[in-house]
């Protein structure tokens, strides 16, 4: 076991998969000579060469389309969006090409799109978005969003080995702030499986990525008040692990859905809808969503702090829900 940062875990997964399978290669802006804007691929250009670590022009649509073509020819490309915000430029290639190939003729499109996303980095409206909701209702896509180094490495390896297109949402705030132990040997974290990261009895907090840490901090605060939170880390957003969510809610009968994307029409809304449809008889209180408001991410740090879901928001909601 070795302790690594979230960023190092991602880097290790890429390195090991490229070493294991010569069909795996990388494309993206400044990922080669410079090693990536966040330095995830530092040293890769020297180790794997210019044909497997390709510096692309500033054209997300162009290099994502090239990657889709390579995937159709049997390669396993990993595309880096410098910031997840820029993924909208490649929307057509992802949604209308990569996601639909299987439905059109059974074509496999094993492409991974790495998307550094998330707030709390003072990046403003163009470098802080959580765009998972844009892709959430697209059949044919898979989406993951790890919260810790173990899952970051295991989910990336699983994504690269998967035959479907996967968007891998990696949280910028966690890159160098979260550390954890990971095994020395090869492992994957299966796609489509949520994980209970904290057992609890009173309220389920269903969440993912950086918000897992907010939920865990709130759980500590509430423990002193005798309110026991169970924290469910979704890990995979598409497909959602319905059974993992339902098992927790059957136990606690109450649920908070916590996410840092804008409020309307995304992962949180879908989890709430599923619980309302399938778990109504098990619920002893209202479903509560805690999210960012439906506005662009503010640039001003105090406003960004206000915009983000905070520990005190979870604590307040849990107190309200515990009273039912």
């Amino acid at each position: 076991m070795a302790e690594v940062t979230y960023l190092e875990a991602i880097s290790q997964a890429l390195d090991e998969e490229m070493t294991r399978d010569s069909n795996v290669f990388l494309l993206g802006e400044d990922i080669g000579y410079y090693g990536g804007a966040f330095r995830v691929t530092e040293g890769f250009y020297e180790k794997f060469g210019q044909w497997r670590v390709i510096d692309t022009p500033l054209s997300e649509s162009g290099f994502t389309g090239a990657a889709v073509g390579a995937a159709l020819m049997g390669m396993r490309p990993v595309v880096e969006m410098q910031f997840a915000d820029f993924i909208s430029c490649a929307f057509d290639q992802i949604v209308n090409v990569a996601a639909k190939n299987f439905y059109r003729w059974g074509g496999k499109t094993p492409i991974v799109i790495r998307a550094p996303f998330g707030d709390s980095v003072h990046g403003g409206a163009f470098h802080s978005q959580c765009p998972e909701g844009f892709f959430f209702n697209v059949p044919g896509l898979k989406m993951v969003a790890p919260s810790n180094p173990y899952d970051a490495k295991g989910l990336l390896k699983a994504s690269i080995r998967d035959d479907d297109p996967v968007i891998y949402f990696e949280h910028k705030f966690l890159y160098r702030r979260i550390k954890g132990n990971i095994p020395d040997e090869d492992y994957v974290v299966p796609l489509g499986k949520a994980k209970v990261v904290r057992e609890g009895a009173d309220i389920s907090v269903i969440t993912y990525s950086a918000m897992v840490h907010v939920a865990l901090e709130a759980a500590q605060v509430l423990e002193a008040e005798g309110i026991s939170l169970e924290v469910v880390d979704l890990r995979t957003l598409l497909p959602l692990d319905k059974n993992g969510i339902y098992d927790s809610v059957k136990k606690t009968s109450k649920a908070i859905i916590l996410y840092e994307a804008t409020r309307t029409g995304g992962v949180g809304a879908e989890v709430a809808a599923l619980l309302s449809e399938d778990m109504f008889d098990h619920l002893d209180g209202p479903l509560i969503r805690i999210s960012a408001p439906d506005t662009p991410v503010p640039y001003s740090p105090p406003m960004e702090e206000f915009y983000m879901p905070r520990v005190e928001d979870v604590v307040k909601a849990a107190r309200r829900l515990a009273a039912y």
Partner: protein
Amino acid sequence: MTNNKITDAHSLIDILKEAIKKEHDSYDYYHKAASIAVKPASKKMFLRLAEMEQGHASELTRHLSDLEAQIHIDKALTASF
């Protein structure tokens, strides 16, 4: 963040590193005082003060790590490769 702000952040890093060193020195100072204190009340007070200094050092270290992590993100945001 502009390059000036990145420079400011580096100055803050130097300040934090110096502050952490001062807290460690204070911890050693009080710990040493506790070891030579004869009265139990004095020993207890020095140990409590040493523990407080350790707490300050931990808080400053956490802040330093956070600032260093943010500097990497700021470089990416401003493309100051």
